[in-house]
């Protein structure tokens, strides 16, 4: 218990995020089905978001909202970094956009050739 407790919480999130990235990449590289590859991408993306969030964590910090709970004077020492939170918000939306476009490609590819296998789409090469 104590060993786990000693590990900073953000490091756990960070490592989970990095692990998620690897899992996602594994999926993208080995799964021949395009939908599964997209799932892999989503995993990677999520992993990155976790890493981003973990980076913004300040030991013992709280949400960066300056109101009664966190008075203005103490703000600088009590809140977590708002920047990564802002960034992750943007990153999520971008990931969403990419995923949407990927999915529509997958849909169209299936329409066009009745398969979702990536290794059956190799007519352009060399």
């Amino acid at each position, binding site marked *: 218990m104590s060993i786990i407790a000693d590990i900073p919480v953000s490091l756990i999130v960070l490592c989970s995020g990095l692990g998620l990235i690897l899992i996602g990449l594994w999926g993208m*590289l080995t799964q021949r089905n395009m939908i599964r590859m997209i799932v892999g991408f989503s995993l990677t993306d999520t992993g990155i978001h976790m890493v981003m969030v973990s980076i913004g964590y*300040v030991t013992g910090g709280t949400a*960066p909202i300056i109101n009664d709970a966190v008075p203005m004077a103490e703000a*600088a020492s009590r809140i977590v970094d708002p920047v990564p939170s802002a*960034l992750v918000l943007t990153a999520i939306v971008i990931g969403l*956009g990419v995923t*949407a476009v990927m999915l529509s490609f997958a849909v169209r590819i299936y*329409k066009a050739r009745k398969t979702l296998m990536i290794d059956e789409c190799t007519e352009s090469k060399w």
Partner: protein
Amino acid sequence: MIKRLFIFMMLLLLALIFFKLASNYTENTQLSKLGQYYAEKGPQELGAPNLVTAVVVTYRGLDTLGEVTVLFISAAGVGLLLRRTRRKQDDEDLEQGDRAEETAGVHKPASEIVETATELLLPMVILFGIYVFLNGHLSPGGGFQGGAIIASGTMFLLLALPESHISRLLIATIESLSGFSYVVVGVLGVILAGGFLDNRIMDLGTYGSLFSAGAIPLIYVFVGLKVGFELSAVLDRFRKEDTGPL
């Protein structure tokens, strides 16, 4: 198989890189330079208690405008990709079988429970979405979150009533106008205040009240509307790709 092994090796090496990252990571004990500045100056400068919102809407407003743009173009892209194939113009890759499939409605109607729940919850979901983006500068939340909630309402609707009609015209008009208005507000920042996307074109108002923090709520309204309708449009596209104009 060899290829798999190779992939595995590569990922192992990548894991090594990640390990180096993680093992050299130490948790921050104080805010970064940027964070420090935002924490100390943010509330006075912009009048928004939620610092994330201040960062998102003003300090990094250009990011947010870009983000809205990303969403806009992915919606447009999805629309472009999943547009209806014109019947007359023979698409080579489209085989006969598909056409039959397309024309026949393939969606099963939802169960009565879902339908009822939707009718009950939908207005509340949308209302909640609006609340979230209107209070973005005060509490956790904001335009994107609110928009996403609205879109989840749409999702509800589509699940419950697969055949329900969503007005493309309405969506298009709202997303175009709200996007354009966002740009206009940004430009007003140059003319009336310090720079592009400066939220201080309007009075900062009372700190912590709903109508405060300058143009932030206004921008969040546009963002919320835009995100909500765009996500709805994307969902609608995927629901049944070959319908509607365009």
